[in-house]
């Protein structure tokens, strides 16, 4: 782990660094897919990606006189490989070897505020910005060389190794050229990007830069941070959000060996000890005993359908009511998904240090910039006295406990100046207290005409907000525990085209007469926030399940039925590619046991395209599912690293299968009851598909389309379709467990 960098060192800088230019904040842009707080104000709408808000080149790229290049990005490595992908982008456009670049990410004191690292926006916002910034810098360097050599700039090239080259073989290093340039100017909107035909780095499978440390026990995670004098903290809590301990035995806990301090503020209790094990043991002592519920009881009998009973605000997503056409067959169905856990393998962790009035926080939050402001409010410090440095951790897949644990670490550190505090949640605290992924309900009624074309599409979706990320102190769970308290953040939907509960509720298909409504439910039966793909997961599951139900009613091939309703050429190609690779035309037809299913989506209708086809086998005696093979085709525009996308898609497929088959947050009236891996099982090795093949479509030079979430919806939908094809039983409520499949097949089998 790199040593924490002193603020003064940063500001002293070197080379081309002149000054920091952090723009004011506004409401103009949906960075991070609309999650989190308002993104920085747009200053240059003509520039691509995050350059709109941070047009100055030296916010992104600095070149020292010795040629050392430092690149800054506000996006964070979450295990999705974005660090490598962004490095490839900027290396390509600067035309330097990627490993010569020092790459600084998501640090409130050093990098541009790019909002959240979320919503599959990192390539679209951050990648595009870095591409243009790199191209702009390369253009400026080339012009400077042209000026020195008195040659026309268009005759000069770069050599891929940090030099500008003249036709006669002369070379000038970037450092030498940069020394007489200022990059504290704005990016050049039309700076020419490199020709994909001569790419050296972009589009190649560059090995991920973070992997070697992860394979060898190198310091790779916030959990591995060890600061001099660091103490270990644990929070003392009831079993889940909405509870508090009735009478924690703090006196007994305080007598435990190694305990340095008990923090007790309102109902927030934390133990600080010399060693981690001592903190855990004292926490157990304090935690023994009963708890009380502090919020309305949990909806045990209704489950997700509780959302339909709560007051909601209706948002019209689409209304294309047109002339009525004759409908031959109508299908009506309701689809649901339960509350999910993010179920990160590593419980959330943060390190905070309060020293000389300055708070430094190492956090794996996806939103270090929001966190800087919200934490400052929580601990009562000016924003500029709080610095948040993103430090990787276990994959989060949305808002897990990362933000909460950081806020709590900061509160503890504030109470113990001079002592770095490392706080990690326990496994059961992560399951019990993190915001869940939203349960959702959809109701779809659709009809086909005698020509087997869809004539009508009525769609209703019920959901809580998927965006309860803390932008104010009140967004943290602990804000309702401490004596001073902060009012909870108001839950808001994300407007289209990103959407949250209605994300992908608007079909990309060509349907006439559509009526799509989002019933936004402000009241949250369980604490919820963002989980990978937000509402797109159930919306695509519903849409793509209904397409198969209609195709079955019309006796049409599901692929042909989709293609008949799709005009978007790239969407068609993705579907046809997946079908081709899978062998859709000569697939085994459903025989009661084996079957095949497919599904498609373009994430948010503005991100990456993804089609999935899979072959499954259902054991009719038990309902057990074996997934023999999965084929995916993805169009993500110009890929930075095809293998990086492949890794994301493979992972998305497996995670979505796990959601669709196994997962469900369980609860009784007073607490969540899924608290460990026994009560919240996820997919294990024996259930992994026999094979997963991913085809990345070749799209040289086309804009980046975020691909990290695009597999979530189509995979669950393809599974439901394959089960229906195999068994004749249509499952509409996730998780589609063996027990539910067996119940649908019936005892006779």
């Amino acid at each position: 782990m790199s040593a924490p960098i002193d603020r003064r060192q940063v500001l002293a800088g070197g080379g081309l660094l002149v000054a920091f230019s952090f723009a004011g904040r506004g409401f103009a842009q949906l960075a991070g897919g609309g999650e989190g707080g308002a993104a920085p104000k747009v200053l240059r709408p003509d520039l691509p990606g995050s350059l709109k808000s941070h047009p100055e080149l030296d916010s992104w790229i600095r070149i020292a006189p010795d040629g050392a290049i430092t690149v800054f990005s506000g996006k964070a490595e979450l295990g999705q490989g974005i660090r490598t992908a962004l490095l490839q982008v900027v290396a390509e456009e600067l035309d330097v070897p990627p490993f010569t670049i020092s790459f600084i990410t998501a640090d409130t004191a050093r990098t541009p505020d790019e909002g959240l690292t979320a919503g599959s926006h990192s390539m679209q916002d951050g990648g595009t910005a870095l591409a243009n910034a790199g191209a702009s810098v390369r253009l400026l360097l080339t012009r400077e060389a042209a000026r020195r050599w008195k040659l026309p700039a268009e005759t000069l090239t770069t050599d891929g190794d940090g030099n500008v080259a003249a036709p006669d073989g002369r070379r000038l290093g970037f450092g030498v050229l940069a020394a007489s340039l200022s990059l504290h100017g704005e990016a050049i909107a039309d700076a020419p990007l490199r020709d994909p035909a001569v790419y050296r780095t972009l589009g190649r499978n560059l090995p991920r830069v973070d992997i070697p440390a992860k394979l060898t026990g190198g310091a790779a995670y916030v959990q591995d941070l060890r600061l001099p004098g660091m103490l270990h903290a644990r929070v003392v809590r009831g079993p889940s959000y909405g509870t508090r301990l009735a009478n924690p035995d703090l006196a007994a806990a305080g007598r435990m060996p190694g305990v340095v301090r008990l923090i007790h503020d309102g109902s927030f209790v934390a133990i600080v000890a010399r060693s981690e094990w001592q903190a855990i043991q004292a926490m157990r002592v304090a935690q023994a005993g009963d708890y009380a519920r502090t919020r309305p009881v949990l909806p045990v009998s209704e489950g997700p359908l509780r959302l339909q009973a709560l007051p909601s605000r209706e948002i019209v997503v689409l209304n294309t009511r047109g002339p009525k056409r004759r409908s031959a067959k109508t299908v009506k169905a309701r689809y649901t998904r339960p509350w999910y856990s993010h179920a990160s393998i590593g419980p959330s962790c943060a390190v905070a240090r309060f020293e000389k009035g300055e708070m430094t926080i190492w956090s794996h939050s996806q939103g270090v910039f929001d966190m800087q402001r919200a934490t400052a409010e929580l601990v009562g410090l000016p924003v500029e006295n709080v610095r948040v440095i993103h430090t990787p951790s276990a994959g989060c897949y949305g808002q897990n406990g990362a933000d909460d644990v950081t806020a709590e670490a900061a509160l503890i550190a504030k109470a113990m100046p001079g002592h770095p505090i490392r706080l990690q949640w326990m496994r059961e605290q992560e399951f019990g207290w993190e915001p869940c992924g939203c349960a959702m309900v959809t109701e779809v009624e659709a009809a086909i005409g005698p020509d087997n074309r869809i004539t009508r599409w009525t769609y209703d979706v019920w959901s809580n907000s998927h965006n309860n990320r803390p932008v104010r102190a009140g967004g943290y769970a602990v804000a309702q525990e401490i004596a001073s308290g902060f009012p909870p953040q108001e839950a808001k939907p994300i407007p289209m085209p990103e959407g949250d509960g209605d994300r992908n509720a608007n079909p990309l298909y060509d349907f006439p007469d559509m009526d799509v409504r989002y019933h936004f439910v402000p009241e949250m039966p369980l604490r919820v926030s963002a989980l990978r793909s937000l509402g797109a997961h159930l919306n695509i599951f519903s849409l793509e399940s209904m397409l198969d139900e209609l195709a079955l009613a019309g006796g049409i091939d599901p692929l042909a039925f989709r293609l008949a309703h799709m005009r978007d050429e790239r969407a068609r190609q993705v579907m046809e590619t997946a079908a081709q690779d899978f062998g859709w035309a000569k697939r085994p037809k459903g025989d009661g046991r084996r079957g095949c299913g497919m599904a498609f989506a373009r994430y948010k209708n503005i991100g990456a395209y993804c089609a999935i086809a899979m072959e499954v086998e259902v054991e009719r005696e038990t309902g057990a599912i074996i997934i023999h093979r999965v084929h995916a085709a993805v169009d993500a525009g110009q890929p930075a690293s095809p293998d990086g996308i492949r890794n994301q898609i493979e992972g998305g497929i497996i995670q979505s299968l796990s959601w669709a088959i196994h997962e469900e947050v369980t609860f009784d009236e007073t607490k969540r009851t899924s608290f460990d891996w026994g009560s919240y099982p996820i997919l294990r090795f024996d259930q992994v598909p026999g094979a997963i093949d991913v085809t990345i479509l070749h799209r040289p030079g086309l804009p980046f389309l975020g691909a990290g979430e695009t597999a979530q919806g189509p995979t669950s939908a393809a599974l439901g379709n394959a089960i229906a094809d195999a068994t004749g039983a249509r499952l509409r409520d996730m998780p589609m467990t063996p027990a539910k499949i067996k119940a649908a097949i019936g005892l006779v089998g």
Partner: protein
Amino acid sequence: MFQSPPPVLRRRTIKRLIPLLGGATGLALALTWRPAIAPIQPPPANSFSPTIVARGAALAQIADCMVCHTAPNGRPFAGGRPLKTPFGTLYSTNITPDPATGIGHWSFAAFERAMRQGVSRTGAHLYPALPYEHFTHVSDQDLGALYAFLMSRRPVAAIAPANRLIFPLGFRPMLAGWNLLFLHQGPLTIDPSESAEWNRGAYLAEGLGHCAACHSPRNLLGGEERSHLYAGGVAEGWRAPALDQSNPAKQRWTPEALYTFLRTGISPDHSAAAGPMGPVVESLSHAPDADVRAIATYIASKMAERASSSPSVPPTNKPYGARQAYPIGATLFAGACAGCHDTGAPMAGQGRPLLSLASDLSDTDPTSAIQAVLRGIEPPVADRGPNMPPFSDNLTDEQVAATLAYARARFTNQPPWPHLDRMVAKARKESQP
């Protein structure tokens, strides 16, 4: 069922008894010779009424047919599951209607004879790993439904590996002697003084459910000791606790608690289903609700009049005394077990049984407690529930013994288990594949 010999049984003892069994066999052979029953053409699956097939499906869950007749990762009912016994290893047979390798050629008469008398269609004697001494009590109607269910399954061609038995038990006619000694045919008698539910439970538990097969001690020939039915037995290296008045549970089993246990694999006042009981509750979780209630009512009644138990007792927890007696065990427990089993651990707040309530820890026989530590516990029903890791590679035999001695001293009022080290070593040996 041969899987449950008394724990002291040694292979040599068995060998000494074999001439005796052989003698009985010799006498019985003439009387017990059985003819083959003529093969039939496999009846089409749709020749059976769906209502009857569905009834058969439910009964098959109570009988656990699939558990024994499915190989690991194999097709349901296609056989091949190994069963280790002191007499050797048996492999379950294919009971799908595949004509060549399954029971496709079996008429109902052949099926009935196998279930009631332990004789295959060909006339060969079956090993009593098939608990026909229980199935013999099943009604004609229920046997008919089971037959309809099995004959309407998907035929799977699968040949089970050959049994590997100690000489001369591979000679099947010897089993005729076993049958003379231990097979008691005929329906069970109704007890008019008990409720209809109790009688239904008795019918299911004694017949298809074959609970006594594991939960009773076995004599030297592997027959259930009829004078000690339900006094506890052995199954696959685990102790099957007594289900009579000597049941070790701290808290009395009520029909409701037992129903919850059989249905979900866990009872908050008792324990979690472990070892071979896991698949049993997995099967029962799919059985008809009323039938599981009936079984619970019947079995609970057998444990009811226990003097030593009361419906509700305060948990025993003596950490200080136990630590003084077993300091090493206390240290090991703190690092290996306390994360789940101490007060303040997450399980405690989630309705999971306290160790002070666990039967395994109060039992006179430490075998199941040892096996739970060595092999762990997998979630029995729907892959969701108690999940305890195996400690066989973390802890040595001495360390397991020290940890259990501490736990017993801390959470029960029972005397220390004698020879715990040796028992751990023996259990570890039995848990090797």
